[in-house]
């Protein structure tokens, strides 16, 4: 695990700001505010993993049901990540939003999600034993 310093925090917050800028711009330029849903999706995406990671209780060696709970969390996370890409595509296919708005919103959403994931990776508490 690489050590994370001040530069990492600055770079991550910069990327996060660019991601939000792209998503909000994709809404405001065309005055259609559906793409804001993508932000909610990507913020919610790591939540099932965290919740199920707590629920599974990794101290328990004997009980094998912990693995199934972890799998459920991973399944939901995978669902939400693809939802962030599929939702703008669905909206653009029915001409509810513009193609340009779709591209900007997908890129911005991926930047936001990448920031959340790398923040979790860099600043994870060392709780391995």
């Amino acid at each position: 695990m690489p050590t994370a310093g001040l530069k990492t925090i600055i770079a991550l917050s910069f990327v996060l700001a660019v991601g939000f800028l792209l998503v909000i711009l994709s809404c405001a330029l065309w005055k259609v505010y559906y793409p804001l849903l993508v932000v909610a999706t990507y913020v919610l995406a790591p939540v099932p993993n965290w919740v199920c990671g707590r629920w599974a209780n990794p101290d328990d060696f004997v009980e094998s049901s912990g693995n199934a709970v972890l799998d459920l969390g991973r399944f939901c996370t995978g669902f939400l990540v693809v939802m962030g890409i599929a939702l703008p595509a669905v909206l653009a296919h029915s001409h509810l939003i513009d193609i340009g708005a779709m591209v900007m919103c997908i890129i911005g959403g991926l930047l936001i999600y990448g920031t959340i994931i790398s923040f979790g990776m860099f600043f994870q508490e060392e709780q391995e034993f």
Partner: protein
Amino acid sequence: MEDDRLWKFSRPAWLNSAWARNVGVYSAGALFSLAFYVLLDSAVWSKSALNQSDVHVNFVDWLPFIFSSLGMLIINSVEKTRLSGDSFSYSGSGVAWKARVVLFLGFAALAGGMAGGIVVFVLKFAVPEVGWPMLGMGVENIVANALVGLSTVILWISQNMEDEYSYNLSL
């Protein structure tokens, strides 16, 4: 190498890692999401201004997908180790038999959903000879059910990778 192996070729070593298992579960979720949004796309497109025909997506089009998802839920809720556990002592009182019946119901629902998607496509879109941009709604129905099936297969395979090695790594 275990002696009770049936097949000539053993599983490659990388398939047994926890990494491959996690990737399998994530991609199963991604495929299921793709299936759901392909079907949602057909429903949204049906109600949008682009669809100028009389053909619309209603509850009947969602029914095969509901059955497929139900089958997926049933199949992946069954504890796999009980399935082959007839020879072991801990699976007395016919647990393996029950698991097989439940699993059969799950696969029946999955296959029924797939067949239902094709039935909707044929009866609603192919036989009345709907034109191409509207025909896409029926094609998306088949694609969605096929993706649910694929997602089930991937989830099943990656859950069966669970042996001692990957179990220790994933802890």
